[in-house]
């Protein structure tokens, strides 16, 4: 994982080694890098520039993963899919307003 990059919560949990990661959301407390209240696997999280270690808590288990530095802002494949979906939702909203 790289800093200055957007990932989905699911990608981050998988990277941290949680098995059946998709089943954790909504059933366990999920905290990623201090962000609480994560209940959806497609929740997009930006890993702040300069981050070296990312702390992930699921339920009462906490894991820390190493984060590589990155000067360029990037978007993971999973986060790209979520952002594309969000874009389609926005298009529908605008079409409704036009009608």
């Amino acid at each position: 994982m790289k800093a200055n990059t957007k990932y989905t919560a699911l990608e981050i949990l998988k990277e941290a080694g949680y098995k059946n990661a998709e089943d954790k959301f909504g059933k366990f407390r999920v905290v990623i890098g201090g962000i609480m209240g994560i209940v959806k696997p497609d929740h997009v999280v930006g890993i702040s520039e300069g981050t070296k270690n990312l702390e992930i808590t699921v339920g009462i288990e906490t894991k820390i993963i190493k984060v590589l530095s990155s000067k360029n802002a990037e978007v993971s494949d999973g986060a790209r899919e979520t952002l594309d979906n969000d874009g389609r939702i926005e298009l529908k909203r605008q079409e409704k307003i036009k009608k």
Partner: protein
Amino acid sequence: MAVYTWYLQGTSPTTIEATDIIQFAGATFGSAITVGAFNDSTHVESSVGADDSSSNGPKNSKFISQSGGTGGDSQVDIGAGTVDLDTVSTANCPLKINFSDAASVTTTGHIFYAYDGTTTTAVPTDVTFYAAEQGDANWTNAEGSAAGVTITDDTASTSHDYYILISASPESVGLKTAFKLRSELTYS
């Protein structure tokens, strides 16, 4: 104490002070945009009407289409022709907002939008406004707080940078002043 700093990016950044104006214009500072067209340039105008960004080569993002790009992506012109919105780099986003705090904090629930300058839920008067966070596939018609662009939650840090593309179009003739930009976030 938390500090917000806004910049108009360019060859050098121009800090946007609290009393400054972000000016959307035609080709040059102070020039009009045709009704229904979008900004060809963006500037920082001081409270006394001076062009504060004149020597900084300010960036500009011009709305081209909502879904005419690759796979339904929005399109933008950042000065070198039309490209997909999600290909624009952070350095080419006109607006950079830095949020910092003495403590390492997360930022969540962050939205960015335009309003009429009085009521945050109200749309700007006679202006069509689009915005997007760097990496977004589509523009958001970010008029009023209910329609704000969702900015990605950021993990804990003492400093957070947000890169935003902005574009505006007049719906009638005349200077538009009932038109302000606003960022709202929760930090903890």
